[in-house]
């Protein structure tokens, strides 16, 4: 029975909305880093440790604009002071968003067993969290902070998080789809499989009695993601879910201009996968939706424990 701390309805302003080649929600490593930073702050005064994070989104407002009313969106940028020559300074484009998220963070440690420490833990977490930044944005307010130590309180808290959507790890869908694609075409790539979870596809079906020839009458039908042979239900999106090291792991001190010369360094790129946004009521056991780091050179990934959902059996008289 795991315990969780719930940071409910965190209002964040100007969070970074660009995660590698995706936009619209910050990368998951942001939230894991937040929990880790919070854990370090607590370790000075309390004997508790924070672990993985479950991310629930309530509101989000990405600062983009469609100049023509259709087509690509562009990011709304800040207006900055002019240069000495009274010209607009060149700018590195940044994407920003306002969001309201709730975080369920795993908590463990001997202090949790002590009744008199609980309110202290709760207050300290609440106070530290409000002073931190989340996904590059400022935390404007947090509704409340609760400790969920038993099953009942966890079920109650999840019900009260509705309406909201939780992010789930579906990297197994990408793997399965790639293997299926490879059977059909030897030159299929993981990139093609990944794009299938983002593209909209339509297929023509000729009218009754018409041949499959060009210019013949047909209706066009939508194809669900990723393919019509194996459709996966749910709101599937491409996400940035960790890093992959593209260089070797350099010893401390070998690389110049780094933040800390006592720590091993590697150059990395973002690794992409597939996620699903689902209504928050689907969470039975919170552990099914908790993202954790699994860091081992060269893969530094955020993953959930892979769990099969329990299927409700129909009445036995039926089968």
């Amino acid at each position, binding site marked *: 029975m795991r315990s969780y701390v719930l940071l409910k309805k965190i209002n964040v302003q100007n969070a970074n909305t660009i995660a590698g*080649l*995706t*936009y*619209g*929600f910050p990368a998951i490593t942001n939230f894991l*880093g937040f929990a880790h930073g919070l*854990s*370090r702050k607590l*370790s000075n005064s309390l004997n508790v440790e924070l672990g993985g994070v479950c991310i629930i*989104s309530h509101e*989000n407002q990405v600062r983009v604009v469609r100049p023509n009313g259709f087509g*690509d969106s*562009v*990011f709304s940028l800040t207006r900055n002071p002019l240069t000495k020559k009274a010209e607009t300074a060149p700018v590195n484009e940044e*994407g920003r968003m306002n969001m309201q998220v709730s975080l369920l963070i795993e908590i463990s440690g001997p202090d949790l067993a002590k009744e008199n420490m609980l309110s202290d833990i709760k207050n300290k977490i609440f106070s530290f969290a409000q002073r931190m930044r989340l996904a590059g944005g400022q935390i404007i307010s947090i509704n409340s902070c609760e400790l969920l130590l038993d099953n009942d309180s966890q*079920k109650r808290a*999840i019900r009260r998080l509705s*309406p909201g959507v939780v992010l789930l790890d579906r*990297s197994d869908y990408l*793997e399965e789809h*790639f293997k299926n694609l490879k059977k059909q075409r030897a030159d299929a*790539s*993981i*990139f093609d499989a990944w794009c299938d979870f*983002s593209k909209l596809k*339509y*297929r023509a079906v*000729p009218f009754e009695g018409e041949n499959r020839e*060009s*210019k013949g009458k*047909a209706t066009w039908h*939508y194809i*669900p993601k990723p393919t019509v*042979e194996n459709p996966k*239900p*749910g*709101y599937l*999106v491409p996400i940035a879910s*960790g*890093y*992959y*090291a*593209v260089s070797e792991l350099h010893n401390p001190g070998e690389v110049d201009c780094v*933040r800390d010369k006592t*720590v*091993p360094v*590697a150059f990395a*790129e973002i*690794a*992409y*996968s597939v996620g699903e946004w689902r*209504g*928050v*009521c*689907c969470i039975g056991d919170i552990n099914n939706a908790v993202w954790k780091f699994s*860091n081992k*050179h060269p893969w530094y990934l955020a993953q959930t424990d892979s769990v099969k959902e329990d299927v*409700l059996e*129909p009445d036995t008289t039926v*089968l």
Partner: protein
Amino acid sequence: MSLNLSDTIGVFIKKRKEAKLAPLVKTRDETIKKAANQAEVSNANNLYTSLALPIEKQFEPIEWITQAASKAKAVSFSTHSAKFLNSSAKSTGCLVTNFDESKPSHLITENIKIKSIDAIGGAGVVSIAKLMMLTVDGDSLINQVKNGHVDALKAFTKDESLLKMWFKGFEKALTSDEIKSDNLGKQVFLPVGNTGCDSNDYHILCPLFPSTLAHELHRAVSSSRFDEESVLIRGARRNNQFHEKLDTFFPFTAVQMFGGSQPQNVSLLNQERLGKCYLLDCSPPQVDNNQAPPCDVYSIFSGDFESKASFLVRDFRIFLTGLTEKDRVFKTRYKRDYAFIKRIIDTLFNYVASVQDSTKYAGWSNDTECETKREHALWLDVYSPVPVFQNERESGAWIDVVADDFTFWLLSKLESEKHYTLGKLEERYIKKIFLNEIKAFEAQTPKLGGL
């Protein structure tokens, strides 16, 4: 007759020379056309020759290649660079050449078979970068230098020491003297140990922008929009005509610009992309808070909720239509049905929770103009102050009616007599799932006067 690499290089240098000479040629020809007599014509020719001579000399192959080799160290070939993160970042880039598909659950640059190599160095060295990237039959100067020779340049000189000098010069483009990051680039601490209190428990990662992967995505998006074939397919769809291929496009893309009005200052591939990098949407679906109650519809399933769940219902219907006879048997199918039905119910509960939360409308079901069915109103109007209403809500008899309504609604939405029939089996299963879920949901719903 197809050209080999040496000939291609020769043509490349010649073309650059002609581009440089073009304005002089134009002026000379114009003067000759307007010339009144022979003296003026010969003057124009002499002028042209005197101006063209230094250019001809500069673009003489040996001379030009020597110049290029000496400047080549300013070019850096990479698949990942920090220049995109901040245009002033001087961090070293990375050149990834492996092809590996061993972990298909995550997409990285190594999964791309034929990688487009990017060249960073600013506008001044673009010609050198292009020279080295000229590819004929899969071979290029970059490949040759990597393999330790410059055989393609043997066509221009027999001098071994000159060839060696050229090789050394071009080699500098592929390697860098020191490895460094930059305070303007991103550097992230990632915990690898357990406690996080020891410096050995962390690794610093310097994330770089994957120009090659961005180029692949740019190519995929552009080809789905502007390729001749894509345009034809889209036209066929618009006119409801048959085409054997799929119509695909990327919805809700965003564009991030690099380099402002000078994209070539960032990198060569950036210039080819015109500074644009396409980004795919990963935002969550819109969740409405404090939704207004559905006073003017009889059933909650036919109001706002229906549009929110429409994509799930559509996918469910397509799934059922696409099944083979063997897979269509309920016994083999019910597990996959469960996934779809459960997700529709999750979306429904999100909508219901949003209406239940809106305390400012409390008591809306009591309004004489309210058209909602009694049992649906009992579910939604949690904070109604009317005691009779609350008693009826407590009794829970409405749950069964709502379950029947949901089942009937879902079955009617999935109806497709041409392809399959859904009967008592499905009806009982859907109702069972719904009752199970709504009981768990309502067990935790806040009550009037409670928490």
